[in-house]
């Protein structure tokens, strides 16, 4: 690192090349996305994600095992009530692993949504005191969910060994479905977090939204239950493609194979992300005054 001496302006401009110039002016309508700023602050995304992870299970008795307990217990309840008692068909795979494969991306999505929607309001002391791209807050809350996902994934591996499932040849697509889940979560997270600054109603809406969304996502049941003519409408929910994609890539069920469902879901996910980004940028300038 060169220690630039500020006393010699010539020296400084040689060492640093061009001094970065910032223009501050009133916002006008739809501002540009300013992704360059986000890139400059990429280390902050890392640190904020790391902070969320570090803090999440501080002063809890069971610590990170919560990442396993929640989906596993849900799986057990689903298996008893939907799998055994209601006899919900599970595309020919054992019901426990069927529902757990769905719960895995779902938990990632649901947690990301809940944490992201609160991220701006909870960090209001930062927002009112210092500049950084505000988008970092919802982004890092979504990314922090990945750690829980990885831990919960270990249980899935154990279950696959137990039920003697060999990963299919399509397993390489799994990260793509994971990215689809993250895009959806970020898109909705941006909407909710920004709206939460202006309307605290979002605090009440989010839990309901997550619950509602879970019912329209094929976690406890298979999307094959949905009649053919409703499939396209059903796939407007991007999480349909994510969950079925996970089952297809890991267990070889036929539902999630690339099809019109996947195209529709991906398109909706991208739409959510783009509109989320635009809405976030548009309201961002109000954050410091309103939060």
């Amino acid at each position, binding site marked *: 690192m060169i220690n630039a001496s500020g006393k010699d302006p010539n020296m400084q401009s040689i060492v640093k090349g061009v001094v970065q*110039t*910032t223009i*501050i002016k*009133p916002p006008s309508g739809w501002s540009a996305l300013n992704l360059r700023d986000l890139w400059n602050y990429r280390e902050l995304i890392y640190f904020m994600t790391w902070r969320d992870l570090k803090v999440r299970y501080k002063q809890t008795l069971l610590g990170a095992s919560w990442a396993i307990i929640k989906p596993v217990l849900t799986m057990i309840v689903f298996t008893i009530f939907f799998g055994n008692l209601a006899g919900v068909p599970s595309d020919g795979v054992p019901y426990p692993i069927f529902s757990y494969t769905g719960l895995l991306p779902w938990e990632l999505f649901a947690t990301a949504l809940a944490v992201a929607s609160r991220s701006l309001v909870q960090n209001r002391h930062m927002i009112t005191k210092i500049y950084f791209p505000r988008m970092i807050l919802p982004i890092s809350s979504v990314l922090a969910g990945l750690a829980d996902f990885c831990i919960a994934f270990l249980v899935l591996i154990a279950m696959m060994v137990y039920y003697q499932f060999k990963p299919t040849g399509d397993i390489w697509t799994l990260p793509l479905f994971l990215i689809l889940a993250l895009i959806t979560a970020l898109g909705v997270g941006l909407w909710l977090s920004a709206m939460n600054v202006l309307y605290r*109603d979002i605090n009440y809406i989010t839990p309901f939204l997550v619950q509602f969304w879970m019912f329209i996502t094929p976690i406890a049941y298979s999307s094959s239950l949905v009649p053919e003519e409703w499939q396209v409408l059903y796939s407007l929910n991007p999480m349909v493609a994510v969950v079925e994609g996970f089952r297809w890539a890991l267990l070889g069920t036929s539902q999630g194979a690339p099809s019109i469902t996947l195209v529709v879901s991906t398109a909706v996910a991208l739409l959510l992300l783009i509109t989320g980004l635009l809405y976030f940028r548009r309201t961002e300038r109000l954050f410091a005054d309103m939060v």
Partner: protein
Amino acid sequence: MGDIAIRVDNIGKQYRIGAPINQYSTLRESISEYLSLPWQKNRSLRGTREILWALRNVSFEVTQGQVLGIIGRNGAGKSTLLKILSRVTEPSEGLAEINGRVGSLLEVGTGFHPELTGRENIYLNGAILGMHRSEIDRKLDEIIDFSEVEQFIDTPIKRYSSGMYLRLAFAVAAHLEPEILVVDEVLAVGDAEFQRKCIGKMSDVALEGRTVLFVSHNMSAILRLTQETLVIEKGLLVLRALTPTAIDYYLSRGLSQEGKYYWKEEEIANAEHPFRPIGIRILNNKNEICDTVRSIEPFRLEIEYTLDEPVTGLRIGIYLMTTRGEYVFTSFDTDDLELFETYSIRTAGHYISRCDIPANLLNEGSYCVGVNASSYRVRRYFQDDQALTFSVDAAGATGMQWPEPRLGLIRPRLNWEIEEI
């Protein structure tokens, strides 16, 4: 690019008063307002929101390497200006151009998390302030050393004392190396020893040729660190001058040189019903209004006000402080038990509260009188921290056979005995 580090051109920022509470409190209201307004012929609903310009028509330039002070009363718009320059909030009009990386310290310890250790918080806070990881790695030892909390660096900071917390927070901030530093009052924290260290560090920063914008109420810090200072008043930039001139101007500003001050209508608007302040005067021992009193003569302070309704437990207070912000004393008109009983309820009417300041009390210098009207633990009706300034002249005072300035705020005439044994 040239020499200019910061160029501010006609910057203004408006707020809608009461907006955060009334405007978007719930989604339902917002939606119903949005839906109903287009159908209403009378859109006065929007018009009734009062607009307040926190800052208006502010223009100035700062050359590279300059340390510029900013002073002004509470609510004058200093913090708004710093927030705009550090991009926390966006201006409503105007333009600012900043050449170089800005580090802003509107607060120390931003983003500190109580569950994380001191070391972890250094990284986190550093990243929030815009430092790179490699930069923090390199300065880590120096920061820990400066903070004086080595033994506790791996303890969660929720176990820190407030002093330790502030030291750690300032240590990170002090090692920020932006080309332009924007600082708001962070020196007003910590114990005297640590404050000295902080001011020392700030001087170093200034000497290194970095551009600094420095907001403070601490006049001696402003005097020490800056050559030039901006005075901001009610959102307007009223003066840019060499620091001693600016401080003089600021301290005597609006505060008459004639030893009296009558509050203007808009200032009275701050007062709470039923208290209405009228004015404050200084009278010398010949009962003349004056702005300079002699140390060896008593003088009188008068505060005039009306009460529209009877008030229980009202007390009118004065705060006397030096123009450097050190308090000399505080006194209330009902300090005396007898008066306290008599005026336990003050009926509606027109009043003057008088206070006699005895001779041989104050040392020479400039003083500032603050006024406060309140009912203890019930309500504050009015406050003006700098209602009036006046000077004390030491001519004829005790010890004037040596024409040297004396240390201390007071200059009492004390009885000495010299005994030869």
